[in-house]
């Protein structure tokens, strides 16, 4: 743990050193990517829902889909992609020094990161928050009833800090039982080593699904922290930033317009809705400003699907999904009361 923190501080120093210097290549990432023929997209060590390896060795997940969307927008091929798995200590260094073109991994958008590390965050593609899991038969229904409880938590992240803050603010005298590995944390909880587990609600939903009897456990309604998870690019390259940002917006906009992977061909050929026609490149010249082909958004939807489809596949009830309810959450479309909102594409 000490080692990890040490490494993290070395990495942060390195990032700061780089960000103060101007990176010559930062001006034209899009040109570099086009010349290279593929996008170098950074994810982290496998994390359920966001980026995983399947038994065939392929990457899948919500953040991987963002990488694939960007690759589709530029090359029309979701496979024109090199997925790099980078440890969380090295993630921002690896972006800043030009190893990665794009960072698409559960990174929380915070002010320090956005303003001091030489990177720019894009609009969040998932809103997460910290919560508690307890056993149903414990009778606890609110986090306020956790007074004096032992709570299992992983170290080295803000999770532990948030828990301590929460305990102090509400005078609950919670004792932290800390772990490096979340599998061990869950095992301890299952064997009765602690009364509750705390972590990001999204990952806890997945974890509960992997418990022997999922119905014996539940997530408490309280949310301890705001965790807007967003992709990031190097600071100062607006052209590249636009490409990535509008690839993500295209996913959300497509869902709003009802364009899916299945009907995108039909929509492009027959739709009379001007919004759809503009987005899919049938009329107008939206693509000019991005420096991409007219069918960039069509390729995204054709290869990856819209945001709703991606969510269903990896976060929702799909075969590879971790089963998080979307309706009523922050991740629903704005038309359904959520925060997923794309500026108009016109």
């Amino acid at each position, binding site marked *: 743990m000490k080692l990890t923190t040490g490494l993290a501080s070395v990495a942060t120093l390195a990032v700061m050193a780089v960000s103060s210097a101007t990176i010559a290549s930062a001006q034209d990432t899009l040109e570099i990517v086009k010349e290279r023929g593929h996008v170098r997209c950074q994810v982290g060590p*496998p994390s359920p*829902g966001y980026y995983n390896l399947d038994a065939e*060795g392929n990457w899948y997940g919500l953040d991987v889909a963002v990488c694939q969307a960007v690759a589709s927008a530029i090359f029309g091929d979701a496979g024109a992609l090199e997925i790099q798995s*980078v440890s969380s200590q*090295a993630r921002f260094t690896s972006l800043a020094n030009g190893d990665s073109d794009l960072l698409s991994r559960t990174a929380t958008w915070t002010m320090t990161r956005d303003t001091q590390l030489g990177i720019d965050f894009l609009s969040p593609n998932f809103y997460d928050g910290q919560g508690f899991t307890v056993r149903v038969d414990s009778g606890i229904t609110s986090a306020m009833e956790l007074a004096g409880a032992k709570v299992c938590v992983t170290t080295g992240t803000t999770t532990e800090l948030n828990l301590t803050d929460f305990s102090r603010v509400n005078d609950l005298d919670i004792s932290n039982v800390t772990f490096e590995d979340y599998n061990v944390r869950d095992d301890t909880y299952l064997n009765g080593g602690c009364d509750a587990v705390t972590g990001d609600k999204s990952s806890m939903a997945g*974890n509960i699904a992997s418990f022997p009897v999922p119905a014996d456990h539940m997530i408490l309604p309280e949310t301890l922290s705001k965790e807007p998870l967003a992709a990031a690019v190097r600071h100062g390259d607006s052209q590249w930033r636009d490409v990535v940002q509008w690839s993500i917006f295209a996913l959300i906009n497509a869902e709003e317009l009802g364009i899916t992977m299945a009907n995108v061909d039909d929509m492009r050929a027959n739709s009379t809705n001007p919004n759809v026609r503009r987005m899919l490149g049938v009329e107008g010249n939206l693509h000019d400003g991005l420096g991409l082909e007219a069918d960039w958004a069509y390729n995204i939807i054709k290869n990856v699907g819209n945001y709703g489809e991606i969510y269903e596949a990896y976060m929702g009830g799909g075969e590879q999904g971790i089963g998080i309810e979307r309706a009523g959450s922050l991740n629903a479309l704005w038309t359904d009361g959520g925060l997923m909102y794309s500026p108009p594409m016109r």
Partner: protein
Amino acid sequence: MAIVTKEKTAERPAPISETSVFGWMRKNLFSSAFNTLLTLFTLYIVYLTLSGVFTWGIVDATFIADNRRECYDNSLTGACWAGVIAWFDNIFYGRYPRDEIWRINFGLFLLVLWMAPLWMAKVRGKVLIGATVVGLYPFLAGYLFAGGDKGLFMQVMISAAIVAFAINMGNMLTGLFKNVGLNTFLINLAGQSKASDKTRRNVLLGMFGIAFVAVYIWQMGWTAERVGWTRWGGLFLTLVISGIGIASSLPGGILLALGRRSKLPVVRILSTGFIEVFRSVPLITVLFMATTMFPLFMPEGFVLNKLVQVIIAVVLFNACYMAEIVRAGLQAIPKGQSEGAHTIGLGYWGTMGLIVMPQALKHMIPNIVGNIIGLLKDTTLVSIIGLFDLLGMLRSISKDVPWLGLHKEPLIFGAILFFIICFSMSKYSRHLEVKLSAGEKH
């Protein structure tokens, strides 16, 4: 009256209490009431452990399932090996394209075949065989695994490797069946056995040249599909990193150790400084510096891939440890040996190569093998910097949605794999020690 038998009494077997299993048990396990109690108690503990492991790992375990939920449906308390089995390809080959896996197997097969003659008493030219394994095989295997366009240098090295392999195999066959080296066999075949040394050498060189040109032309029409290093992983990656580490850290270590004992101040100070710096830093720090800090100091656009950076870091790190082992071995050789070598007119390299090093290396075997085993296990650290080596793959199973949370079984499987590899290495080193010290037993 003296009772003297002239006949020797017939030999009788040792009393049954000495030889039978029961006798042994009585002597070693049940010699007193207290020891009997201890034995029974220990047996009980062993029984508890083994039966628990057996029930969890075999009796209650699930071997065939599509996801972890099915394992639970089968048994809530047993192991779920199905997840490990479903991930076998990932565990052994990483993300290597499934259609191309034969290339890895073929590469391994080549290596085994290439090294097999080293264990055959009848085959000649073992030093040369060993040298080609270290010097040429990596190029052939490297291309086989990575594929893509061959540069001129690679074309030459690959052709040389193929020719060397063919010669090696031919040499093995002639050694086994005719009991002669390939060179003698070919000379005889060409009817030049009575010719002068020079003619014979020219005939052999000519044959080698023809073979090389033929192979060179043949390989130009053959390319393997490119497989990027990011798709390498699993046990394969672990073996590649540690294989290169092992093959280069020993020569590197020997050079560094000689440098440290050198009489030339610059060489000595540089070697000492290098060794001390790398030895005082943890491997994970070296790896981390190599992969994140190194690119910062490189000219714009210069990209060395992460695998190469990692391998360089592992080699340098282990060469330093190896250097100290070699230095210890060198110091154990009495000064009289090198003085003796000087009196018969050997220079520095002659003394080291023929007199000192062979004796020293023999003493170093246990330490060298210990270091190699350590190296193999150290390579698991690369999973921290994002390479999917064996450990990285095993840990990823618990994140794959169908097998979410499945982490004990993969790690146990990994432990068994590592045990098999490391234990066979240590057994082999023991065998090597006995064989090499045969001269000391009288």
